[in-house]
């Protein structure tokens, strides 16, 4: 059979394809529909948080930080409850990372504040002596891309039925709703309101001035995102 295949390239290629496709079919397909169903308390991202998530991706934060707490005592002691599949239901893409040069960030919103992030992004070693993380000072100057974040919200709402403007059950029994703005301008206005709350806790005068003038620097967006990780 093998000799025959080696003289018939088309069938040879088909045989290879069937052989390699096998594993994907069996491993990936059976769970596909079940996985990624949200757990109670999992909300889609607001426009500002999503813009912050884009800043996170733009700067490849996942190159050094994981967002996956494994079910070991040493990890739950350090980072909080181990990760559940449903918590990632609205994560496109997933940001688990593959290397922990720095600590896990899955629940960083539980134990770090806006103020801490502001100082840390400016000069990590001043906040954590011995840190090898580079400073991210350009985030204080670059403007966050709210338009693209809003475009992504519309896309996921339309294509994947991500539940914006929908009541979502919370862990404490209440309901929460994440609004989806009707227009870009509305989205920007809502993001700016969120940004003002963050900026109020910050010290950098340039950032405060920018937000007061209606702009949203990247640092504000990424802090909104990091604070949402709980």
């Amino acid at each position, binding site marked *: 059979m093998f000799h025959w295949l080696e003289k018939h390239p088309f069938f040879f290629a088909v045989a290879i394809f069937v052989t390699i496709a096998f594993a994907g079919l069996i491993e990936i397909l059976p769970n596909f529909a079940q996985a990624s169903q949200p757990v109670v308390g999992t909300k889609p991202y607001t426009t500002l948080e999503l813009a912050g998530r884009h800043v996170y991706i733009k700067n*490849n934060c996942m190159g050094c930080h994981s967002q*996956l707490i494994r079910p070991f005592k040493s990890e739950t002691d350090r980072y909080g409850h181990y990760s559940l599949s449903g918590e990632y239901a609205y994560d496109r893409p997933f940001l688990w*990372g593959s290397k*922990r040069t720095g600590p896990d960030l899955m629940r960083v919103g539980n134990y770090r504040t806006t103020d801490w992030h502001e100082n840390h992004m400016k000069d990590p070693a001043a906040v954590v002596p*011995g840190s090898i993380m580079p400073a991210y000072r350009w985030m204080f100057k670059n403007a966050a891309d709210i338009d693209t974040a809003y475009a992504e919200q519309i896309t996921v709402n339309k294509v994947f039925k991500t539940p914006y403007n929908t009541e979502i059950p919370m862990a404490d029994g209440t309901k929460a709703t994440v609004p989806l703005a009707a227009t870009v301008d509305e989205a920007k206005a809502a993001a700016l309101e969120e940004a003002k709350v963050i900026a109020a806790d910050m010290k950098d005068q340039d950032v405060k001035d920018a937000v007061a003038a209606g702009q949203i620097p990247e640092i504000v967006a990424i802090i909104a995102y990091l604070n949402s990780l709980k």
Partner: protein
Amino acid sequence: MENRPLEYDYTVAKWFMLTTVVLGIVGMLVGVILAWQMAFPAVNLMAGEGLAEYTNFSRLRPLHTDSVIFGFTLSGIWATWYYVGQRVLKVSMAESKFLMFLAKLHFFIYLLVVVAVVGSLLLGISTGKEYADFEWPIDIAVVVVWVIWGMSIFGLIGIRREKSLYISIWYYIATFLGIAMLYLFNNMEIPTYFASGGIGAWYHSVSMYSGTNDALVQWWYGHNAVAFGFTVPIVAMIYYFLPKESGQAVYSYKLSLLAFWGLMFVYLWAGGHHLIYSTVPDWMQTMGSVFSVVLILPSWGSAINMLLTMKGEWQQVASSPLIKFMILASTFYMFSTLEGPIQAIKSVNALAHFTDWIVGHVHDGVLGWVAFMIMAALFHMAPRVFKREIYSKSLMNTQFWIQTLGVVLYFTSMWIAGITQGMMWRAHDEFGNLAYSFIDTVTVLHPYYTIRAVGGTLYLVGMFLFAYNMYKTMTSSRRVEESELQNASPMGA
């Protein structure tokens, strides 16, 4: 007419040889910069505060991974394809104007993609998935390049004189099919600009899969991009170049059959070992573990087949630096494919995952196996495509030892770093509290990061020697006759 030997046309092979060398140096230079940044964070500011955004670790890291994978390695694969393909199919590229055109188109679109990738990664335009960082416009260009290469493979096969496909061709076909399937499925994404009716950045997209599903597809891709980029085509090379250079026949046809079909079947299952103790279902994690261990069989099958090909001719390892490169590559392949399965065992993975041991594993594989084999292939090709002897044998030997030392420093330091960090993360004191804060587990690694940076730098120095040797071979080495090009490549002192 029929008795005249075929004149093979190596035009496109030469072009890809050039990009192999250039992108290899670029990718490894960026890697060395990253290594020094981890040892000494001040290097992040090497071009000043103003350019820090583009020179800092996190922005450069994808540039390193993508330029060595899709730059250096892919170029090497294509350089050898446009050389090996003609020779084992007994047909010249010059015989088909269409195939020649396709091959040139292949090269030029590839160059455009390289430029687009470098620009977009430096600007931080990324989908956020490792080794699948490219946004949709680049993905489409990648697919075009890939389809052209496929037409080139099957076109050349279509007009072949040698009816039976040599082992290397099996592996090239598998590379083409495997990457095509993986790349397409993993990069399924929706451009937000169009879906939202023209809002935001035109190049931005959002993944079709979310959370755990996205992770599953990504590591099915990520692991097997390694399989079909770093293993399958490199095995294609060694099956051609080692027998050619040594003048020995492949040791066992049956073993090559077992190794090939075994590899095809088993490799894809192993992707799950990247997700052990994550939120993907437990049974998949165990499947990933088990098949990773089974994977030793076909991997070692090829490696042992290559080592036994040298049976009775081991003196060549001492006399020829080219054989040395290939034998060490094969040995590192065995080593790396033993280390991988060990790390895929659940209890070991609990310790090793997220640490530098994984980084060490990747690099003993790519520096020791992939890069050594690609360089050996290019060395073997050089006298045949340029009709000149290899410029300097002693330079090759020097390069070999400098780079071997570099790899050894790299993986040993990363083993120690990884296991140290993994142990410290989980250490508890007598009251059951965590013994170390996270930063303790970072500062302790400084000496190992420094050693690794030295190792990487040595490897890069070897790359420059390689580039110099190739350049001299191409331009000013002694010219050779066809009769000198039988087996062992002619080399100058």
